[in-house]
């Protein structure tokens, strides 16, 4: 604000999950400077949860919340533009993100959780503490042994299983540092795309830019396609219910649903909290709804959209996620009308 007059910057120091959905809905565009697949998945689900479809399954323009995402690893990076409902969302192309290998230093120093964290602690922090100044040589078996032993000690201290010599090798050799120039390039691409979306001064990136500066310089634009069955940016998973189904039963169904596997779900309808798992105050306030029928809670409409936020488990991995669900009540008139009755 000091450097550029007329701009208003409001910092929020909190977890992205701590903000209510409305907070994100107030912006025209969301630019992502996130460092993990989980965080991207979360914001993506939030932005897509605002998206509504008309009766012909076309996205309603006014509900589209564009996102601009970027990320770097060493000399490589990507920038992308996500127009929910029109271009693939983060979840449509989740396969682009293989499991991550780098860890924040604070995790290593304070809250190790996995064997790899213990190894990186020994390699990045302990090594310099003890050998101050001497460069670590990953090809020296004695030095690797030293890191391995320190990692084992650390793992024992924290009761973490799984540190092996071979894993030590794998983790240590895969460290990818952040590089100022790559960050500059990717952030510039993201800023430019954001500006273009806001101003309409030029067409936007369609839709995924990859950049690699290791050998010479390579940039490539790929036009990925939307997954029409995407659970996150699609029209939503259709769930048919009896009018007598209670909110509690509904929440239990989400956990067993083959496409969702959403456990401990909080449920909102048109911005109203039907049931919240946390914080305790809200949980207590909404607990009584659990025994009421969802049909009643939704104002006895034949069908409508609810948002469920919870923990989804995929391949033994837990991620917090928000899902859009199209609920239709059996035997109620107008059931074929998928208008969300929202937008009020």
């Amino acid at each position, binding site marked *: 604000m*000091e*450097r*550029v*007059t007329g701009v208003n910057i409001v910092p929020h120091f909190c977890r992205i999950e701590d903000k209510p959905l409305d907070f994100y809905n107030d912006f025209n565009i969301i630019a992502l400077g996130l460092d993990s697949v989980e965080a991207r998945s979360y914001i993506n689900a939030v932005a897509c949860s605002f998206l509504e479809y008309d009766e012909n399954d076309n996205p309603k323009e006014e509900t589209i919340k564009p996102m601009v995402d970027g990320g770097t690893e060493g*000399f490589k990076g990507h*920038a992308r533009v996500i127009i929910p409902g029109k271009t693939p969302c983060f979840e449509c192309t989740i396969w682009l993100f293989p499991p991550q290998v780098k860890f924040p*230093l*604070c995790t290593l*120093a304070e809250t190790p959780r996995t064997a790899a964290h213990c190894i990186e602690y020994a390699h*990045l*922090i302990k090594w*310099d*503490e003890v050998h101050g100044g001497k*460069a*670590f040589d*990953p*090809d*020296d*078996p004695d030095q690797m*042994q030293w890191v391995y032993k320190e990692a084992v000690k650390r793992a024992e201290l924290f009761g973490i299983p799984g540190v*092996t*010599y*071979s894993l030590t*090798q*794998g983790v240590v*050799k895969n460290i990818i*540092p952040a*590089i*100022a*120039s*790559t*960050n*500059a*390039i*990717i*952030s*510039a*691409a993201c*800023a*430019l795309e954001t*500006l273009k979306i806001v101003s309409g001064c*030029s*067409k936007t*990136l*369609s839709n995924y*830019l990859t950049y*690699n*500066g*290791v*050998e*010479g*310089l*390579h*940039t490539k*634009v790929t036009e990925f396609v939307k997954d029409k069955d995407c659970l996150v940016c699609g029209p939503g998973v259709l769930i048919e219910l009896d009018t007598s189904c209670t909110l509690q039963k509904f929440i239990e169904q989400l956990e067993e649903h083959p496409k969702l596997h959403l456990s401990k779900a909080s449920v909102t309808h048109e911005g109203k909290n039907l049931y919240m798992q946390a914080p305790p105050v809200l949980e207590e306030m909404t607990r009584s709804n659990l025994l009421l029928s969802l049909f009643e809670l939704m104002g006895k409409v034949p069908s409508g959209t609810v948002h469920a936020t919870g923990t989804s488990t995929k391949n033994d991995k837990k991620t917090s996620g928000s899902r859009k669900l199209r609920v239709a009540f059996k035997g109620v008139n107008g059931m074929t009308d998928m208008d969300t009755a929202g937008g009020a």
Partner: protein
Amino acid sequence: MAEPKIKYDRHFGQAALEKASVCLLNCGPTGSETIKNLVLGGIGSITVVDGSKVEVGDLGNNFMVDETSLGESKAKCVCAFLQELNDAVKAKFIEEFPEKLIESSPSFFSQFTLVIATQLVEEKMIKIDKICREANVKLVFARSYGLTGLVRVSVKEHPVIESKPDHFLDDLRLNNPWPELKRFVESIDINVSDPVAHKHIPYVVILVKMAEEWAQSHSGTLPLTREEKKAFKDLLRSRMSGFDEDNYKEAVDASFKLFAPRGISLNLMRILNDTCAEIDSNSTDFWVMVAACCNEFVAQEGAGEVPLEGSIPDMTSSTEHYVNLQKVYQSKAEADFLAMEKHVQSLLKNIGRDPSSISKMTIKSFCKNARKLTVCRYQMIEEEFNSPNLSELQKYLTDEEYSMAVGFYILLRAVDRFAANYNCFPGQFDGEMDEDISRLKTLAVSLLSDLGCNGSILTEDLINEICRFGASELHAVATFIGGIASQEVIKLITKQFIPMTGTFVFNGIDHKSQLLLL
């Protein structure tokens, strides 16, 4: 949390960066953003050359000036900002227009390791290029222009030892094992009956042993044809004693490493046969090592191979086998290094230099990376401008993937001709847009026909677009261009990673940017 950062920096050729002295010409957004990344990266000293004063327009696209700087020297303000970012950097500024300095004191530039020339027009680019080439100063051009821009490196020769490519075949010598590796392999019984021991034999051992077995029944040759390779893999599978033997699965997957050709790759052969490898007292350390490697080592100890890299990939194995195997590779690499060191020393003596003038560290790094050596050479800007590679140019003009980038490239040259003729850039002043468009078109068409190409290939849309840019320097574009330029500067100074060859043309419209090799 400072230690890990220092560690990474050291890996990155920090010493070279700290020793480097870089000169920046023009500190508009493109120049400022380029130098900022170098200052953050720990460059030794910078000299900012700019003769302009900060105006209101600068506040909208340059983070390194603010309202309090209005009317002051831009070089001074940017320099002060950069100093704030990193007080270890020696930051100097010269309040002078680079264009003037190029004309009046060409010798000024010889003090620098590298010059970053931003926002120069064609005529000045050619001049600074000659000055730097003569003084053996590395040069990087960067220019932002509306939604386009370019980055171009100009150095006579840039040899890279630590090229650090992403994907490179491991140096395992499976098809050419040396005696110690053979002995190690023989010391392990691959038919061991204990199932735990059986599934912890490293695949290197399995492959070397099975290759030997194959060769014995195939008159001394390794699998060559597709059928033979398949048969070899089937042979491997037949030796698995269970379904879950990861080491055998790895052996099957890694068998291509056994089938790879022995000896020296074509790329490397080209470097070893380069005329520069015929060394004399003026030869650089790099070429002395190349000569020691190809004339001496490969012919003698190497028996047709360059020094061994010495590292092995991770593989399923007992810790004991793995550590011992690592030691076998390490000690061979060490022996190769010692042999190379002797050759380097005697060659240095032959050409009248101090035999220990190339450090052990450098020779070691050379040995470790011998298979990955790269030499980049760049033609002079003037050559490229006057007589570009016509067939490439034609190809780019008609290739849909390249046509927009090459269009920008041509038009960026045309706007410089425009500026030379009319004292302003096309579209810079509102009322004259239509006239500017037709003038620019004429200039672009004549430029193309001067080069021997059909000028009608440029689209009206692109010409209009360039005029619409009105020579503006957008901050986001400047940051992108500056990011690329700074990255190339770091590669050139640290001599790590491979710098780009050709001219990078940025396309901020759909991001289909391209490297043009003209």
